[in-house]
């Protein structure tokens, strides 16, 4: 058997992704035990990957996964000897269809997986596995950590969900905005973590950026009145539109300023802009919409030099009212350099050293400003520091070429 093509693997991943979260949600409703439900679906996903790669995606992938997950859940319950009442319910031949409700089943599940009582890494890992349908191995490779590390994060998170009584439901109205921000942040992190991957080494590696875009789409569709949910989808759509230009023909990372803008996906940019307008019409500005507006400025600029940097700087000042994080201020520094010069920007960026000393892009940004100012020795030192701090192979290669 010849190895499946990357396209076939992407189709396989998408088929699993379309079903996994819904099956976790319905199985959880059925067995009343989140851990059992999630593990059962995870096992089904692993089986599906193996079987479907060999024989192709079945006609009804959802039904296939559902049957496998139920069988696995039954096995687990039998081992746990906790089946009495549940077994009766599971004997029904036809899987019970979810009760009709206003929101997609997966959205309450997401709110639970992204609960602030869980550590951020745990939220990410659990969301990827329980809602997006990644395997533990895929999550581990995406974050460059070991499989046992991911497995342990997930086990702990699920133990906490069960023992601390974290509800897998929509949050109360007065908590809704803050909790939605937590959920959107997980999708945003997922996009950024997945963004810098060069080539997919393993056949069944997932494109996390694509998964994040899908997740943002799910949220924007399920919560169309939430401006920030639509804003995040706009942001990720606009950023993803640049994907074709982010690597050159040798697989090397290309920074925004050097990208061949002719390779940007104009269709995607158009839909990103339309989404941003839709979000803005809801009249509830927020950090994702403002970041989307900044991305839209870049998307419409013919070159790096001809970019409307003043507009971008104004947008960053607005963004800082919603998000004072050091990383946002660092990004503002890049725009500041274009408007008021590298000297002013360096002074501004240097104030962030205490917060960002462990962040590779802080040092890479400083290196860039120092180079512009002709201080090449200091620039090299900063680049070396950045190189020490990043584990991403594509970024490492870029920094090495700057140091060569």
């Amino acid at each position, binding site marked *: 058997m010849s190895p499946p093509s990357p396209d076939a693997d992407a189709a396989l991943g998408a088929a699993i992704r379309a079903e996994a979260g819904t099956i976790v949600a319905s199985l959880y409703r059925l067995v009343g035990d989140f851990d059992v439900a999630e593990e059962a679906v995870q096992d089904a996903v692993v089986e599906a990957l193996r079987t479907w790669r060999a024989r192709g995606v079945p006609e009804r992938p959802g039904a296939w996964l559902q049957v496998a997950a139920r069988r696995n859940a039954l096995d687990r319950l039998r081992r746990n000897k906790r089946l009495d009442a549940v077994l009766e319910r599971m004997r029904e031949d036809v899987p019970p269809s979810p009760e009709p409700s206003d929101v997609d089943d997966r959205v309450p599940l997401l709110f639970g997986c992204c609960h602030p*009582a869980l550590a951020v890494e745990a939220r990410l890992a659990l969301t990827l596995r329980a809602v997006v349908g990644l395997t533990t191995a895929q999550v581990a490779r995406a974050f460059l950590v070991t499989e046992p590390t991911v497995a342990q994060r997930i086990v702990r998170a699920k133990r906490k969900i069960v*023992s*601390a*009584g*974290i*509800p897998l*439901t929509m*949050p109360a109205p007065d*908590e809704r905005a803050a909790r939605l921000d937590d959920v959107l942040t997980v999708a945003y992190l997922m996009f950024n973590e997945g963004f810098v991957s060069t080539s997919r080494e393993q056949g069944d590696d997932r494109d996390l950026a694509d998964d994040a875009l899908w997740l943002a789409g799910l949220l924007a569709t399920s919560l169309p009145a939430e401006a920030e949910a639509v804003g995040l989808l706009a942001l990720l759509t606009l950023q993803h539109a640049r994907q074709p230009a982010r690597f050159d023909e040798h697989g090397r990372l290309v920074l925004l300023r050097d990208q061949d803008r002719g390779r940007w996906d104009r269709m995607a940019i158009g839909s990103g802009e339309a989404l941003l307008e839709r979000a803005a019409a809801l009249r509830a500005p927020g950090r994702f919409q403002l970041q989307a507006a900044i991305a839209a400025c870049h998307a419409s600029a013919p070159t790096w030099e001809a970019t409307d940097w003043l507009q971008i700087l104004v947008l960053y000042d607005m963004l800082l009212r919603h998000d004072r994080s050091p990383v946002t201020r660092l990004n503002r520094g890049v725009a500041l350099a274009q408007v008021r010069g590298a000297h002013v920007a360096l002074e501004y960026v240097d104030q962030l050293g205490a917060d960002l000393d462990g962040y590779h892009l802080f040092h890479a940004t400083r290196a860039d400003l120092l180079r512009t100012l002709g201080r090449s020795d200091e620039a090299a030192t900063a680049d070396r520091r950045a190189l020490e701090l990043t584990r991403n192979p594509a970024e490492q290669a870029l920094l090495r070429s700057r140091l060569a």
Partner: protein
Amino acid sequence: MKYVLMFCDTPDLYDRVDEETAKKTYEEVFAWFTEHGAAGRIADGGAELQPVTTATTVKSSDGGPVVVDGPFSESKEVVGGFTVVDVPDLDAALAMARTWPPLKHPGVSVEVRPIVEHEM
């Protein structure tokens, strides 16, 4: 589910807060208990503790338990009291904790921990 809310503060809290503010916070705490009690969310009123300066700790050691002066941990924040609540889930417990009146003072925190429930 039952949770213990542990009300923590820094021992010098009431040195930093003037008497009138302290009195007002006390009244608000009373109202907090009254409100949640009436709603059936308080399973056990718990207790307010004497200052940490009154604490004595019995510790394990190689030669058997020893009695030492002071609190068990060296941490800046100490438990000043606790109450047991009975609510549907963590979100409901967090919603209660969030409205704990002394939280408007710096250094105050509320730790929310589920209780181990033994099956009958």
